[in-house]
């Protein structure tokens, strides 16, 4: 039978993993190897994807992909803790410590680096193992910690605290050093081309089997390395433990138990990392397979194959500047990037092919499965000797209980709608709105004070107008929306940090596949409700270029927080309080609906093809770190205020100038004689069919290209600081049409610049801007026509 035929709670043993390419390789890297036992734990509300338990962790998989895996049903193996008192402790080997473990000095790969000379470290680990938390502890800087796999999409650098000579680079979370995803290639390139002096490999001790898969590959690189066993506090609290001395003895690298969240063990980790890097002590073991003499044993077959390959390919690896063992195992795994670098001759390729063919024949597994099987076999043996498995952790039990509701078949979607509705209602109608009103009062008080001061000092009226009508009113009108934006980001951050975003991707995978995307695309789009720039950049987590480009094109349909001031201004001017929230939610839903329709169009035209496979880990729910959330809010508030006092301020002064002076640079007698009226007048006829053909409105829309908040500041300035004059520009219905247009028209210049950078194409960026404007115009026109039909115009 195949894996997709399992029922909830049923266990099976994997017989064969069919298929080929990136997906199959990824499935093997995640531990879905022949012989492993899996249990079906959950099915998404719409029947797809499924969640499996294997090797002590949970993994999601689509039914189509599960159908490629052949299994046989088995009775579940009960988790049994090893009986206490059965083993004798060994002395601490002292790897990575001065004056001890002298045997490891044999692994020196170079001269000792003098104290004070620069040291560079790579921080490498799986997604969701606390890597960014450790980075924060090592460097003392602050980074956002997201609980959804793939939030960290790029490297970050920092200086290790109290060691100014030591720099650590936080690399993307990866599961393997295979060449398929951008994150894996970025990490490999960093490790092999920039030659860091040391590696800090962080491993989640509560999920040690899967994490050690990457550790083995890192050790093959021959770079001085230390293993940080994170979340040891959780392991201990749940009755588990790890025999550190034995683990260190077997692996031949320093093993340091830590809790990054609680800042435990960090100093010891730093000491060991600095030692192995400075003294150039490479890992004591890079060989993970043995030959037990059995001709048909798959691990023995791999052992013979690897050693034959090393003898054959050592000169090529050295010529290419690659670690020999690493290069050979990757050649056996059919790594195209390593193959290209090794430049084998035809006879060498033929010989290697025969060696690999022999391994496959003897072991009964293909080359990829054979290597994965070898690594996991070593890990299983290692864990049997050194790991006392904990009982099911409290965190896991809690997550299972919560998931019964949040991902239940009949409760998942309603819960999601309720949660998102709560977020938006709280942001727009309750807390956010209340705080924004307070902020407006404060800004108004300051403006009046400054105005009185300028009058008292008999400042020239034009200069006074520049300060009050231009700078203060313009910037102030945008600043008053700061609380709303901060509240929105607060909630999005909570959802991300608790782990709920991962569940959302799991739930949304099937409906997103209907529009040609995977559940992974949902998170960038959700982030787009905050800001398009990080949303577009977080599409780097999508391994498929097709999915990335399509998600980038759809992100502008998710109304970003910068548009909130526009919505806020017009809804408060034209709609009764009880309708404002509804109008806001309606705009967001309209944006999503337009995005869905656009996605269908893209799927049928330029983005034909299947979405990327959905293989993802669902982490346990965690309480969000207050420090992390508060830091995020502070960063967002700081960024917004910086933008208000720089970009918005500059734009406001320019707008004021264009509005105040005419073509001869005299003070314009009337507003419609100004330079701005001239510019706005050129494009105003475009908006006449939509019901807002006034030059002031079209001018405001132009400035919205620099920053969406500028629409509000420009309108305010052009109305002489008196927004109660908005009814001279709009009726309630044309205000709604205007809102629809601003919802959908081009993103700001920062977002367009990000599109250009992420797609590598200025043409794509320009097309995005123009297409969005066209869509906005058409949809706004349709809304106006509908209004005409119902007599609302």
């Amino acid at each position, binding site marked *: 039978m195949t894996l997709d035929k399992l029922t909830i709670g049923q266990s099976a043993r994997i017989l064969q993993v069919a298929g080929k390419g990136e997906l199959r390789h990824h499935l093997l890297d995640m531990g879905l190897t022949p012989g492993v036992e899996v249990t079906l734990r959950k099915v998404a509300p719409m029947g797809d994807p499924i969640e499996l338990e294997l090797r002590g962790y949970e993994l999601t998989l689509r039914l189509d992909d599960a159908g490629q895996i052949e299994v046989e049903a088995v009775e579940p193996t009960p988790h049994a803790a090893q009986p206490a008192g059965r083993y004798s402790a060994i002395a601490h080997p002292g790897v990575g410590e001065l004056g001890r473990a002298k045997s490891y000095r044999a692994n020196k790969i170079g001269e000792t680096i003098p104290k004070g000379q620069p040291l560079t470290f790579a921080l490498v680990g799986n997604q969701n193992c606390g890597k*960014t938390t450790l980075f924060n502890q090592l*460097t003392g*800087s*602050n*980074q*956002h*910690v*997201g609980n959804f796999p793939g*939030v*960290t*999409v*790029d*490297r*970050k*650098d*920092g*200086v290790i605290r109290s060691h100014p000579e030591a*720099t650590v680079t936080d690399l993307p979370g990866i599961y393997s050093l295979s060449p398929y995803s951008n994150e894996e290639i970025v990490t490999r390139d960093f490790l092999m081309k920039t030659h860091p002096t040391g590696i800090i490999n962080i491993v989640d001790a509560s999920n040690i089997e899967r994490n050690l898969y990457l550790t083995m590959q890192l050790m093959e690189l021959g770079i001085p390395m230390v293993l940080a066993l994170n979340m040891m506090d959780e392991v201990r609290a749940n009755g588990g433990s790890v025999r550190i001395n034995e683990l260190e003895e077997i692996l031949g690298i320093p093993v340091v138990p830590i809790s990054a969240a609680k800042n435990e063990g960090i100093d010891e980790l730093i000491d060991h990392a600095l030692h192995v890097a400075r003294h150039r002590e490479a890992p004591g073991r890079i060989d993970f397979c043995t030959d037990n003499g059995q001709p048909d044993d798959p691990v023995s077959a791999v052992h013979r194959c690897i050693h034959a390959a090393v003898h054959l390919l050592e000169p090529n690896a050295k010529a290419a500047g690659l670690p020999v063992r690493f290069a050979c195992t990757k050649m056996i795994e059919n790594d195209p990037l390593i193959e290209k670098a090794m430049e084998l001759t035809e006879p060498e390729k033929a010989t290697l092919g025969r060696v690999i063919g022999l391994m496959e024949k003897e072991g009964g597994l293909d080359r990829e499965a054979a290597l994965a099987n070898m690594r996991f076999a070593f890990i299983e043996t290692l864990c049997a000797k050194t790991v006392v498995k904990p009982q099911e952790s409290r965190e896991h039990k809690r997550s299972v209980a919560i998931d019964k509701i949040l991902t239940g078949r009949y409760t998942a979607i309603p819960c999601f709608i309720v949660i998102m509705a709560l977020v938006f209602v709280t942001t727009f109608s309750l807390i956010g709105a209340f705080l924004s009103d307070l902020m407006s009062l404060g800004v108004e008080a300051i403006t009046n004070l400054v105005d009185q001061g*300028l009058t008292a*000092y*008999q*400042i*020239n009226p034009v*200069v006074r107008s*520049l*300060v009050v009508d231009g*700078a203060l009113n313009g910037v102030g009108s945008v600043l008053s929306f700061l609380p709303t934006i901060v509240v929105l*980001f607060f909630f999005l951050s909570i959802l991300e940090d608790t782990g709920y975003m991962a569940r959302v991707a799991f739930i949304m995978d099937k409906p997103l596949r209907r529009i040609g995307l995977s559940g992974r695309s949902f998170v960038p789009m959700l*982030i787009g409700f*905050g*800001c398009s*720039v*990080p*949303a577009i*950049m*977080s599409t*780097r987590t999508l391994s498929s270029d097709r999915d990335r480009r399509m998600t980038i094109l759809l992100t502008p349909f998710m109304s970003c927080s*910068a548009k909130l001031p526009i919505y806020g201004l017009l809804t408060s001017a034209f709609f009764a309080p009880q309708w404002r929230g509804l109008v806001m939610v309606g705009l967001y839903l309209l944006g999503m609906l337009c995005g869905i329709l656009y996605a269908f169009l893209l799927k049928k035209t330029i983005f034909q093809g299947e979405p990327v496979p959905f293989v993802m880990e669902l982490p346990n729910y965690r309480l969000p770190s207050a420090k992390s959330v508060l830091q*995020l*809010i502070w*960063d*967002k*508030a700081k*960024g*917004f205020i*910086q*933008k208000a*006092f*720089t*970009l918005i*301020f*500059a734009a406001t*002064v320019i707008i004021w100038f264009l509005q105040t002076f005419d073509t001869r640079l005299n003070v314009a007698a009337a507003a419609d004689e100004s330079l701005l009226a001239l510019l706005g007048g050129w494009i105003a006829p475009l908006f006449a069919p939509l019901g807002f053909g006034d030059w002031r409105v079209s001018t405001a829309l132009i400035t919205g290209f*620099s*920053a969406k908040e500028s629409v509000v500041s420009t309108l305010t300035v052009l109305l002489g600081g008196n927004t109660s004059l908005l009814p001279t520009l709009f009726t309630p219905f044309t205000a709604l049409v205007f809102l629809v247009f601003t919802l959908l028209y081009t993103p700001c*210049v*920062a977002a367009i*610049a*990000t599109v250009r*950078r992420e797609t590598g194409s200025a043409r794509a960026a320009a097309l995005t801007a123009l297409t969005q404007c066209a869509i906005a115009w058409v949809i706004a026109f349709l809304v106006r026509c509908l209004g005409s039909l119902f007599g609302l115009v």
Partner: protein
Amino acid sequence: MNFASYVVLAIVGVLFVLAVRYVLRHGGSDCGGNCSSCGASCPHRGKPRR
């Protein structure tokens, strides 16, 4: 225009120049507070943070 007006105008002018300079240097891009995904545009990228 009196002297105070010139002073106020000069202050606004200097602030305007500083704002434009900042925007040109930093691209006017708002990272949205999500530091983990703004590596490519962050001015501190590649430099050790203290």
